[in-house]
């Protein structure tokens, strides 16, 4: 498709701003470099973006079982509430007494998510999951630093973890100790016992883990780390499986992030904005990023924690994303939250049961909200890879599952259907997956070259990285 720079013509424009009603001011030195921006009429502009949007697959376009990403339905009321001018037109530095509703919204959401997490304090400053991890690990770092315990230089991360975990630990100045998983995909207790020591700052763990299983040894795991003097960080990427059923705080974790754009139904927007709410136990509150929202006799205001790690972002985080999450939490309430979790688990187990007749599962069930299939055997027998099967799904208007993750499973496809999908749709999808499986034996060539019906076909990624073209070049 043509780029916006190739649309329209010199002189095409929108009429947006009035003439200047005060004397025009010139600077002593102004820009001389050319500024190439599109020349389009309003009609040309909107057609261009409508055409782009036609080449996007969103949750609204169909099934989106991207494991680890929790692509549940994004309720429309949440969007409507977040676009109320009473929220969108607020200046972040206007006096607190003129923003009581916004502060109250953050306060309610903080209290309610604290209850879901089993944590005592919550901040919404982090903008995304990885940003929340960064904040959480800094709480651990601040805790040890404050106690003068500077020998703790290592963070333990299982080899099944999301890449953000080791990357976060490294950004926080820690050495990463990777520990192997056991044959059930969980933490190997002996490996953990061998890894902890006086240099352990903490453990970062996802539970249910990235193979979709709840680690039954979780209390023992957090105890081993605590006994060694370390703290436990909960990566909330998979919280959707357990919210309202069991709480990270009760598993022994000291701090947590939760992706509001996964578990709490705020949309992903093509990769953001999300929000990475961070919760912690009372003893870590004094290190939280400032400011935190507090209530005093019915009035809401800001407070800087005593030994704050400082800000991690401008102002108070992705505020209107929090408004969407609050709308969602108010809608679900006490029963709805656990009902969502249980149905997410039900749907994943149902799809797993339907698919295991053909596909090999990496681990036995029951799973939590997602499961991992290993296509190693299929690949060996037919030459058709997980990538080929995933690309084949595109020709059926399906978004494929997460591919090649977690790294500890070969030829992995990780399926997370979410609670908002119906049995009818899952039956249809399982039918298509099984058809693709059969095709691997009957017509592998068609899968090697899939997709065939998409706006573009398989793209040359190696070439893109080798000779990077990262912007449009205008003619001089």
């Amino acid at each position, binding site marked *: 498709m043509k780029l*916006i720079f190739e649309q329209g013509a010199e002189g095409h424009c929108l009429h947006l701003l009035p003439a200047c009603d005060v004397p025009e001011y010139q600077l002593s030195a102004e820009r001389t470099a050319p500024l190439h921006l599109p020349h389009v009429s309003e009609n040309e502009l909107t057609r261009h973006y409508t055409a782009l949007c036609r080449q996007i697959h969103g949750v609204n376009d169909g099934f989106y079982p991207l494991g680890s990403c929790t692509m549940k339905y994004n309720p429309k009321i949440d969007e409507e509430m977040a676009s109320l001018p009473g929220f969108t*037109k607020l200046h972040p530095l206007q006096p607190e007494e003129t923003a009581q509703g916004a502060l109250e919204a953050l306060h309610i959401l903080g209290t309610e998510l604290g209850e879901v997490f089993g944590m005592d304090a919550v901040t919404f400053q982090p*903008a995304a999951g990885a940003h929340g991890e960064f904040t959480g690990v800094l709480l651990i770092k601040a805790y040890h630093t404050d106690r003068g315990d500077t020998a703790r230089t290592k963070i333990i991360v299982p080899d099944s973890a999301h890449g953000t975990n080791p990357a976060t630990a490294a950004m926080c100045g820690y050495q990463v100790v990777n520990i192997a998983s056991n044959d059930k995909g969980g933490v190997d207790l002996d490996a953990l016992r061998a890894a902890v020591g006086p240099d352990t700052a903490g453990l970062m763990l996802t539970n249910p883990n990235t193979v979709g299983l709840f680690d039954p040894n979780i209390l023992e795991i957090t105890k081993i780390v605590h006994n060694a003097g370390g703290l436990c960080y909960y990566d909330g990427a998979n919280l959707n499986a357990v919210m309202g059923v069991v709480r990270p705080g009760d598993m022994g974790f000291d701090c947590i992030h939760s992706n509001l754009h996964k578990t709490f139904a705020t949309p992903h927007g*093509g*990769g953001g904005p999300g929000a990475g709410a961070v919760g912690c136990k009372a003893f870590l509150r004094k290190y939280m990023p400032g400011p935190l929202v507090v209530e005093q006799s019915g009035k809401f205001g800001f407070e800087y924690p005593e030994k704050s790690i400082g800000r991690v972002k401008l*102002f108070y985080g992705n505020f209107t994303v929090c408004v969407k999450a609050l709308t969602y939490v108010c809608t679900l309430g006490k029963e709805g939250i*656990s009902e969502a979790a249980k149905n997410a688990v039900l749907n994943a187990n149902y799809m797993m049961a339907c698919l295991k007749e053909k596909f090999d599962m990496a681990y036995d069930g029951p799973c939590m909200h997602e499961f991992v299939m290993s296509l190693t055997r299929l690949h060996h027998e037919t030459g058709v890879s997980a990538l080929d099967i995933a690309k084949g799904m595109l020709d059926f208007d399906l978004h494929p599952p997460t591919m090649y993750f977690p790294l500890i499973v070969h030829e992995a496809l990780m399926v997370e259907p979410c609670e908002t*999908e119906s049995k009818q749709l899952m039956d249809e999808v399982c039918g298509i997956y099984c058809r693709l499986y059969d095709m691997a034996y009957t017509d592998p060539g068609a899968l090697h070259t899939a997709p065939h019906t998409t706006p573009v076909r398989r793209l040359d990624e190696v070439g893109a990285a080798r000779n990077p073209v990262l912007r449009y070049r205008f003619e001089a």
Partner: protein
Amino acid sequence: MGSYVPTTAAEREQMLSKIGVESMEELYAAVPREMLLQDGLDLPAGLSELEVRERMTALAEKNRVFRTVLRGAGSYRHFIPAVVKSVTSREELVTCYTPYQAEISQGVLQGTFEFQTMICELTGMDVANASHYDGATAAAETIPMCKDRKRTVAYVSAATNPQVIEVMKTYCFASNTELHVVPAKDGRTDAEALKAALGADAACFYLQQPNFFGQIEDAALLGEIAHAAGAKFVMGVNPIACALLPTPRELGADIAVGDGQPLGLDTAFGGPYLGFMATTGALMRKLPGRIVGQTKDVDGKTGYVLTLSAREQHIRREKASSNICSNQALCAFTAGVYLAAMGEAGMKQCARLCISKAHYLAAGLEKIGCRLKYSGEFFHEFVTETACPDCRRRILDALAEKDILGGAEVDGGILWCVTELVSKEKLDETIATVKEVLHA
């Protein structure tokens, strides 16, 4: 109450039987019994959509939306063309994930490629990433781009937005990096102090342009000083001002970052905003975050993919250039639509309106006895000296009564900001109101 679950009780039974379990509880068999919540969460019951709307609307109504805003300090209320919201509220765009499956994500990828191009045009740099969380985190993440084994110390001008400095400090606490604040004189970075401060271990110097006080820095000179010491020169710029001011590239910057909020995003009580990062070809592979590149498909058709991912956490894990995964993609797309709608002429007109109106207000306030705190050239923000906190309060209260949010209180003064949204009439009303307070 609803949880958006479509499954009926009968369907649930069929599903459980296919799975081979008796109850939903059995699915949680791996969870130690003593940990299960016995009485559920201590939360209110769920609400119907009608009730939720009432509740959220009531919260929104407790906030006061000022008709006129003369406050910036890192968040700017600008005009947002109607096409921006119309385009960016499309469901495909709002509800899709990071474009891992390029074949069905060309719209997001191409829109991001166009955004990267526009950021390069605004800043004069060679390459831009797909976005960062905001201007402050973008600023903080330039430091690891500049550090190496010998050059380990970062410098930032004291005339930078204090919140940006605070975020840089937090990131430096994380990575055990020394960060020095270079003092300002008369509201601008002290060039002599910078020269004296930079040592052989200097990795980078960060300068905000226009700076926190609205002043236009002698960036070329400060950049030369940084380069003479062997440090990288990083500029944090306002994207609207970029249309009028010499580009970071012309001023010698190695990296240009900023907050893209003024490009079509609401002030929204602080977020979501948009961090942008642009740099030279030489530093391209050190950029954090997603980058979209152009390539061909198997039929030779042009298409777009996420590229240079060997820098990123999902490939490199603890050796990645950053841990960033989700960014502010929809905000970047929004900025792209905004810049397309404005065009070169619109951007220049917007910047001209901002600077002209800011100077009109400054001159008007001076005429009634306010003193400008700093003497240098400014863009759309400036500080008036009002030493007594009580006077500042009375001025701001009097303006609030006229539905005007006056400037932000900064040490010893008020930091005013004027954008194209404020008419001459409102500026005259502001001046008259301040005059009344001063002469009361």
